[in-house]
């Protein structure tokens, strides 16, 4: 049963979940008739379609998992995951630049997301200098084993560059410094 749990079946399940979620949360929408469509007609139709497609994807995934040789393992993460490799239209033995398959590593995901959220949450209360500085510190956490000292200077430079470019240069209405007393 666990063999069926591959990328495709999870993807299919995701679509089913989204579609079902849409149907449930949108049940109050007025569907109307074909010649006088309510606001719910097309969105709910899309939800049904997603469920159907999700089921198809899961079905195909399970069928493929059953067909796989039980001793051979199909690696879940391949070089295809690399953003540099696009497998279209080449002959099968065509060589592509050598890329190491990436392992699943939660650091970049967390670091980038937290960096973005840090910016969003700090911008209005504390101004752009603090927001950019904090954000780029969080971002640098994506790369392991980088000493904090080597990160502070680029972060500071970035804050200044942003200030110069966006606030002074382009005149965007961003507060440079923390707003004291809200």
């Amino acid at each position, binding site marked *: 049963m666990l063999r069926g749990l591959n990328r495709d079946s999870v993807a299919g399940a995701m679509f089913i979940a989204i579609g079902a979620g849409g149907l449930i949360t949108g049940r109050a929408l007025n569907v109307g008739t074909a010649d006088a469509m309510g606001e719910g007609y097309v969105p709910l139709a899309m939800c049904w379609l997603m469920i159907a497609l999700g089921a198809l994807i899961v079905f195909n995934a399970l069928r493929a998992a059953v067909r796989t040789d039980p001793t051979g393992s199909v690696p879940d993460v391949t070089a295809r995951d690399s953003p540099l490799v696009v497998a279209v239209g080449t002959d099968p033995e065509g060589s592509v630049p050598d890329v190491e398959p990436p392992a699943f590593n939660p650091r970049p995901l967390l670091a980038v997301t937290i960096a973005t959220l840090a910016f969003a949450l700090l911008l209005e209360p504390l101004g752009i200098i603090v927001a950019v500085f904090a954000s780029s510190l969080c971002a640098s956490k994506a790369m392991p084993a980088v000493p904090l000292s080597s990160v502070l200077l680029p972060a500071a430079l970035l804050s200044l560059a942003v200030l110069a470019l966006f606030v002074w240069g382009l005149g965007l209405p*961003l507060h440079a410094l923390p707003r004291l007393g809200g």
Partner: protein
Amino acid sequence: MDIGLASLLANLATGFSVAMTPTNLGLCLVGCLLGTLVGVLPGIGPTATVAMLMPITFYLEPTGALIMLAGVFYGSQYGGSTTAILVNLPGESSSVVTCLDGYAMAQRGRAGAALAIAALASLFAGTVTTLAIAVGGPAIAGIALLFQSPDYVAVMVLGLVAAIVLAHGSLAKALAMIVLGVFLGLIGTDVTTGEQRYTFGVADLFDGVGFVPVAMGLFGLAEIMLNLESRAKEGGITRLRDRLWPTRADFRQATPATIRGTLLGIVLGILPGGGSTIPSFAAYSLEKKLARDPSRFGKGAVEGVAAPEAANNAGAQAGFIPMLALGIPPNAIMALMVGAMMIHGIQPGPQIIAKQPELFWGLVVSMWIGNFMLVILNLPLIGIWVKLIELPYRYLFPGIIVFCCIGVYSLRNSVTEVMFMAAFGVFGYVLRKLDCEPAPLLLGLILGPLLEENFRRSMSLSGGDFSIFFTRPISATLLIGAALLLGFVLLPAVRRQREMLRD
């Protein structure tokens, strides 16, 4: 609409007067520079860059904005080939194929010739495609003026079907992504009934999910996350030892390859799902099949550089044809340009060419000028670009994240939108891990509202009768075409080949 030679020349003259203004020339240069930069640097692509520049286009004239964004797009095709040839590192996915023979040529001390061939092939393709836009655009727009709502629905369906068919990977997944995109595009206030759809009371959603946060999250942030995860082995940087110019034999071999690549690029670039990556791969395969001695490929065959380079430039520019003539973007980056037009209150569609001739012809002429600018940027200034690759990614990516944040924030002065972008960044990461392509989602997002509006109108025109799509000749033809395309791809023989390519 007048498409005789005299009117073409008159229109081009209008275009020149628009494109040659100092502002527009400057914007063209900025676009080309940024495009080359983005093309050279791996880990950031033209789609994310165009998404990041969206907020800036607010402050520009629409013509100037499009000129700059276009420059970024076709400029990145030039830049990507530079690193592909010199360092075996494709800056863009459309330059992956150029690595094969381009780097091989460089290793034999022929880097200069490879770079020149790439640049010249791109210039040829750019020029020819610009002409194709100038002639084809108005012609297609003329036909499109006959379109009514059902025909629009049909052409969008055909477009979306072609997008899935031409994409690699699972059909069902690509289709599901489009449907999800359409669904997301419909979130917000329904224009017709005034009711809220899936907004859950969040004020920032009343106008819909902004496509800029989605684009930046899915393409920008997710791309950064994936890049930080993987490490690519790059070849040593080859010094430019030989003379910059190719030999006469090179030209003789490269010329037919360039022509074939250009034509292939134009055809595939017009079709939805096109863009520049698929044409470059297809052109390489074609050259290899046509060559008298296919074993030369991978070892420094000039055609292996000329054809894909011509194809990727032609493909990139040809995408403007359906965008400008029909208002229907064939791929994600064209969808963003449609968005840029909408930001300025310009409704894309076939009437644009007639009603906004300065926009259309100005853009067309500036593309031609841009191609020349790029040859100059890419040949003499190569040393600078090579130095840039040596800049560690670790200094670059925090800046990219911050620029994305500022860009999104400045659109509606909303931190909520920045948080949406973060959410879509996570979603984009998850999608890539699940082997789902994000581009169809963006396409669906932009086309969704258009599709629904025309569908509704068709239905109220026909009084709820679905057969209206088949009784109108234009719409019936287009839908039959879509069905044939879908059927072709579902054929067992074609399926097996696609599955083989997937693994």
